[in-house]
């Protein structure tokens, strides 16, 4: 097991390095004809001499690989550069925003996981039943409404018509729980369908297996068949799916935070890209990938641990 974990961590580091190269090449060089860095940062109306000076100042005239190594070194030691948009070091901006998104993510998962697991298991247990069909249809409908659209719809209902909640989540006067409700709601409604259906598929598959038939024909009470025999096998796949939802969440928050003006990581990323804030964009990208790869690693480890066939092979 230990070797497996070490191998996966090694791969994670490899991924991060490749990703950093990709990001660097995309953003800091002119490889894809993306336009000269200086022009992008300073704008098109600046004179050539000023651009040259800027480039010299920021070390853009050195060979690419030296720049890359320097940049990577900076990154590894925590120097994330300065944001041109916010006119301050990236470090001061990125971490509080990441924390905000973490809070949002926490509540999304806290609400979504129990609901989707329970509904998934119930519909998988009784495949084809009315409950199953209803949940299926509901989850298809909810996953069909893209999050930016459902932002609008929920906003209409809860802010416009029923005037229950505030329309934005800027948290200007400190933390207010009411302002979290809408973003969490949108994300939960959108993702619950997917996780519920994965769980349902896994549960339905398990209920069809010969070993469940054995358990029933051994005379075990039905609740024991489900709780002891079925769930142990049925929940392995949903566990992995849920871990990978963190990856999805990082995408989903962009839209939601943008719409509700929540000062989170996703909105930051968007702002950085719309404003050509290279340093901030790089930092956000690296952090996002790190979180994603990290959760993938945890998912892999968890899956190996939960599946005895792999654990003891």
């Amino acid at each position, binding site marked *: 097991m230990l070797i497996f974990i070490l191998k996966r961590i090694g791969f994670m580091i490899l991924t991060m390095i490749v990703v950093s190269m990709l990001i660097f090449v995309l953003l800091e060089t002119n490889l894809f004809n993306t336009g000269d860095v200086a022009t992008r940062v300073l704008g098109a109306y600046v004179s050539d001499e000023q651009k040259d000076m800027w480039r010299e100042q920021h070390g853009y005239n050195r060979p690419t690989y030296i720049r890359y190594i320097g940049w990577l070194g900076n990154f590894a030691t925590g120097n994330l550069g300065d944001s041109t948009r916010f006119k301050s070091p990236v470090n001061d901006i990125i971490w509080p925003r990441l924390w905000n998104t973490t809070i949002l993510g926490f509540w999304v998962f806290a609400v979504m996981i129990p609901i989707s697991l329970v509904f998934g298991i119930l519909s998988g247990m009784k495949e084809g039943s009315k409950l199953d069909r209803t949940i299926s249809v509901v989850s298809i409908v909810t996953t069909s409404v893209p999050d930016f*659209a459902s932002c609008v719809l929920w906003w209409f209902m809860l802010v416009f018509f029923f005037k229950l909640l505030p329309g934005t989540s800027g948290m200007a006067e400190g933390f207010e729980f009411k302002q979290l409700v809408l973003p969490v709601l949108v994300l939960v409604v959108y993702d619950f369908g997917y996780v519920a259906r994965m769980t349902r598929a896994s549960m339905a598959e398990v209920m069809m297996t010969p070993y469940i038939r054995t358990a029933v024909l051994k005379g075990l009470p039905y609740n024991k068949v489900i709780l002891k025999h079925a769930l142990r096998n049925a929940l392995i796949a949903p566990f992995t799916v849920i871990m990978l939802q963190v990856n999805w969440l990082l995408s989903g928050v962009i839209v939601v935070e943008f719409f509700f003006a929540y000062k989170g990581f996703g909105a930051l990323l968007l702002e950085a890209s719309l404003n050509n804030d290279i340093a901030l964009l790089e930092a956000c990208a690296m952090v996002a990938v790190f979180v994603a790869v990290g959760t993938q690693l945890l998912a892999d480890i968890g899956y190996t641990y939960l599946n005895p066939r792999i654990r003891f092979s």
Partner: protein
Amino acid sequence: MADAVTATADLPSQSMAASLMRMLKSFALLRESWVGMIGAAIIIFWVLIALFAPLISPFDPNAHLKPFAHPGAEYAQGGTFWLGTDKTGRDILSRIIWGSRTVLFYAPLATFTAYFVGIIMGLAAGYYRGWVDDVLSRLADIILSFPVLVLYVIIIATIGASGTNIVIAITFASGPGIMRIVRGLTLDLRNRDYVAAAETRGESAWRIMIIEILPNARGPLIVDGCLRLGYVIITIGVLGFLGLGLPPPDPDWGGMINESRQLAMVFPYMVLSPVLAISSLILGFNLLADGLREISLRD
């Protein structure tokens, strides 16, 4: 003996008849799932709208006519704004109709190129295994480890927003996922005896992959294809919404939502129409995918 002769002569027409019957049967199959039928109906509805856009669109979608008109308002020079106009005076109904063209052009195109790349990579990885599989899978893992939207944002932010670039970005982001699925199917199918039979005949590797293995993977791939079309439509919508979509003035449902959300308090109709349009189209694909999955399970 005479029977044998006539039987031989009839063979080409018999096999044509058989193929036709099979095609008709697959359409009839859809009837077994009412969910799939509804999905197909919605899709056909929008496809027809997109096809006949020039004929049915009441106005030029980019013409600035009368700002902030309410749904049902009359236009001085003739015609009605059935869904109202936006803040710069463009008729919303026309923009929705023409917007369907944009979506229904780019989404299938992007999905198709993604599938093309993904299938080639997946077949190769699953069939050859060994180092080919290692390299391709690692590559796929790396790309897949990016949160999807983050990837899009970065790519579009760097190479700029245009129709072609969106197709490239979607191919880049979806290709690995498709590759994973095809790889999994190929790994399973390559152990079948009929593949071994082809190998013992000395068939070339690519012939085996495309003719022996791929047709038997079409079930799950078709279902995934419908779902993925839905995701791609969402992606195009989101990019439009975030301001990273197709540059104006092409009507783009996502962009329409973004443009009008600030005013949604006062003019809800501006935002609701594109929301319902895009949601219904995605719903159509999801329902169709679900229906196809039901049918394939019953087979």
